[in-house]
């Protein structure tokens, strides 16, 4: 990949960039926009306050684009991506969150490559091209300096009724030359993110890249939002989606090859994007996609690849196992989150009953102590609320993301299998052409012979190309898998540190509450 060679580590614009330094600090400046330095009207005016993507309605614009892109591959790819999309768009679950933690999660996650990786960057036994190992080293150097920083903020409901949608502000800050300016923002809606994913899938998955999947559609969630954005569950849904979209974008831009993709650039920069219509569930394109998914699934089952390299088989198995494990973990975390919420509720209710008891109490000191108790309990409820959000955003969403990513990874493996299949089919076609030639020779029909010879030449070159493609995909998949594992270890560690930090803070606050209450309790006489 040529990505790394273009990168020139940019100088640090400021010393106090909260999102960039190591994870140890800056958890507590909640609510701060990470672009606090750059987000000013100048930058923002690019990203027009107008909803920019309602206007164009050409129904097949997107599909036409798609087909142009896909034409390089001879195989018909009207089914956009691998069958594992069925995993990607599983039903969403709505869970509560708080703004505060959401933004601190955002802040931390924006440094997904935060602390430089451990010294375990030794060459893995899997075959790696020298150029890609160099690239990796360069990447690690660059990871201290964030070339592209994205944030998704300010969800805003546009319109009314069933045609309403939520527009998000996507802000980018970068030092890379390929962008038109250093800081800018645009407004995008969910279907735009989905559209970006689909475009990328078509192009990049042919190469074997792991495309990070965006959060799932949710008809229920969105309908509630369309009806009114005021009730807590709608607010939670929007916040959850906003955070997920942000992580999605961050993963996209931190992938060296994806970052180079013009569609990604367009997504971040262009004021208006053509509306991604084929993402509508009930559109014609939607149906076609479903059908193609199904046929791909059947196709997959009948290919039995002659695997010469056990690395792939082993890895695939590992991926499947890991997905299972994460799903189990997800169930447990979900139950933890729901119990925490229960605790919030019961604490609040208890606080009220203590307040009533305190109010009815004759003895002044006792009355005051009981009222104080009620206040302490109220504060604890707030703490529990934050704890629940922390559990949720740090772990539940992390697990969900990785389950989706593993699905995407399986997709890559499938791409490789398909490349192999194409190669094999080309070989058998070539074989048939040769047989035809032989027959023609025997039948002595010179006019047709030339044609046959031409066809053989053509197919020979195809076979060579497909073999090369297959090898290339194999290498890419290997690299992607290793990169993924590295990212995963870092991601999880980062989240754990964040969680522990949050736990520590909340315990310390708890200590303060109790220390404040103790003298009140002792003062009762």
């Amino acid at each position, binding site marked *: 990949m040529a990505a790394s060679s273009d990168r020139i580590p940019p100088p640090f614009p400021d010393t106090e960039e909260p999102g960039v330094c190591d994870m140890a600090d800056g958890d507590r400046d909640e609510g701060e926009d990470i672009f606090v330095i750059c987000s000013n009207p100048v930058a923002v005016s690019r990203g027009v306050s107008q909803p920019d993507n309602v206007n164009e309605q050409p129904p097949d614009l997107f599909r036409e684009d798609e087909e142009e892109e896909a034409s390089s591959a001879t195989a018909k790819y009207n089914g956009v991506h691998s069958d594992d999309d069925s995993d990607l768009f599983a039903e969403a679950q709505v869970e509560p969150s708080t703004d505060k933690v959401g933004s601190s999660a955002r802040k931390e996650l924006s440094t997904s490559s935060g602390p430089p990786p451990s010294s375990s960057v030794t060459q893995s036994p899997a075959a790696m091209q020298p150029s890609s190992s160099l690239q990796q080293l360069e990447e690690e150097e660059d990871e201290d300096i964030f070339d592209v920083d994205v944030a998704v903020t300010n969800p805003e409901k546009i319109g009314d009724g069933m045609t309403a949608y939520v527009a998000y502000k996507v802000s980018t800050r970068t030092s890379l030359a390929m962008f038109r300016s250093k800081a800018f923002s645009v407004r995008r809606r969910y279907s735009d993110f989905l559209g970006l994913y689909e475009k990328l899938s078509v192009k990049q998955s042919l190469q074997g890249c792991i495309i990070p999947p965006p959060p799932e559609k949710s008809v229920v969630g969105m309908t509630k939002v369309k009806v009114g954005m005021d009730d807590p569950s709608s607010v939670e849904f929007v916040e959850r989606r906003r955070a997920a979209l942000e992580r999605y974008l961050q993963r996209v831009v931190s992938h060296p090859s994806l970052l180079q993709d013009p569609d990604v650039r367009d997504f971040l920069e262009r004021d208006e994007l053509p509306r991604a219509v084929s993402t509508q569930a009930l559109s014609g394109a939607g149906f076609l996609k479903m059908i193609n998914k199904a046929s791909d699934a059947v196709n997959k089952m009948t290919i039995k690849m002659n695997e010469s390299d056990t690395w792939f088989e082993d890895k695939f198995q590992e991926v499947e196992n890991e997905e299972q494990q994460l799903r189990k973990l997800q169930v447990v975390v979900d139950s933890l989150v729901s119990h925490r919420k229960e605790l919030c509720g019961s604490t609040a209710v208890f606080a009220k009953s203590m307040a009533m008891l305190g109010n009815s109490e004759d003895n002044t000191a006792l009355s005051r102590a009981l009222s104080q108790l009620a206040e302490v309990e109220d504060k604890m409820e707030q703490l529990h609320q934050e704890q629940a959000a922390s559990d949720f955003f740090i772990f539940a969403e992390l697990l969900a993301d990785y389950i989706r990513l593993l699905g995407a990874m399986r997709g890559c493996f499938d791409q490789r299998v398909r490349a192999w299949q194409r190669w094999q089919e080309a070989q058998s076609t070539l074989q048939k052409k040769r047989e035809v030639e032989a027959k023609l020779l025997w039948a002595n029909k010179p006019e047709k012979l030339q044609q046959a010879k031409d066809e053989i030449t053509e197919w020979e070159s195809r076979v060579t190309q497909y073999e090369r493609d297959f090898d290339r995909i194999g290498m890419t998949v290997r690299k992607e898998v290793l990169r993924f594992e590295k990212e995963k270890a870092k991601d999880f560690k980062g989240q754990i540190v964040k969680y522990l930090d949050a*736990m520590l803070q909340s315990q310390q606050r708890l200590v303060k509450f109790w220390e404040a209450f103790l003298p009140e*309790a002792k003062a009762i006489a």
Partner: protein
Amino acid sequence: MMVMTSTLSVHGHNIKVTEVLKDGDTLTFLIVSQKLSGTGEHHVDRTYDDFEWLQQLLFSQEDEPGIQGVIFPSLPAKASANPSAKVMKQLGFLGLGEWQLYCKVLERYLRQVAAHSILSKNKAVEIFLTSSEPPGRQRARKNLFNRLSQAVEERRKEGYKDVDEFFQTERNHNLVLTCYAKTAAERFLDVVQSEQKIAVACAHFSASLHLCVEPGEDPDKQAFSKACVQLSEVFDSIKKNMTSVAENDMNTLGLGLDLESRCQEAEKEMLFRRTCKLVELEAARRNAEKAKPLKKAAMEEAKKTAEIEFNDICVVAKQEVHRFRAARVKMLQHTLVQWCEKQLLTAKESADQFNQQLQAFRGIAP
């Protein structure tokens, strides 16, 4: 019935319910008391029925003037080795765990009885605490103290206007406090149970993380596995923290709220008895006034008896109310201080623990 008074031969303030044994469905409690003479201890075993026997005898000290003005120490509901859901709900905090709180409550009951100037003189108390044979287990006879009958009459008489401002205020106040204390106890129980559920979920998570450990020499895989193991330890700490928090809650504030709730009920019953007596008295006065000459003398006699009884009750009741008020404030203060101190300690310990783990975690990640 036992009305002979005696002095207790054991210390009242350090009676202990040391153990509870399960025998089929019955629970047997071991009670230890110190002899006043300093020559040793009494060890007896009693079932709940024995406690009830004692309580009924205390109620039936009819010769004791003003006995109805006493706020009787409250016995908890009956517990069995395998209680039904309904009983568990009734018991609230006392049903949690392995009956430790229940024993504490019984212990407190005995101490209160032994400390009460009137009640401790009842011979039944001496027998209960010192006799090696279990006391007789006959069913109590019905008397005014039977709650069932009170429930029926409650509606009519509870609101009866009082002649004494002190008592009217106390009645009003008590009504409010009884209700709130009960609610507070129930809601706190919900809090504790949520805490326990969180502890369980954390334990699950901790165990599940071990399943994510991946074998292999790949450094990233190892890093990930190590992270999982450490996270598992973190959640184990969280589980321990939650468990402690729940226990602290249970043993201090939970117990305190339960006691407060039952004590308020006990006061309510006393006040109700007094009110009933008041109703009786006013009826007797009316009868005496309206009586025909033939019955006049008898009615006057009845009126005089009622007056004396009522006055006796009022005297005792007033003392009891003052004693009660002081005792409950003291109990609540002690409860709140203990609760706060324990939770503070737990929070500090947990903060230290998390801090250590955080440092360790950061230490391995360069």
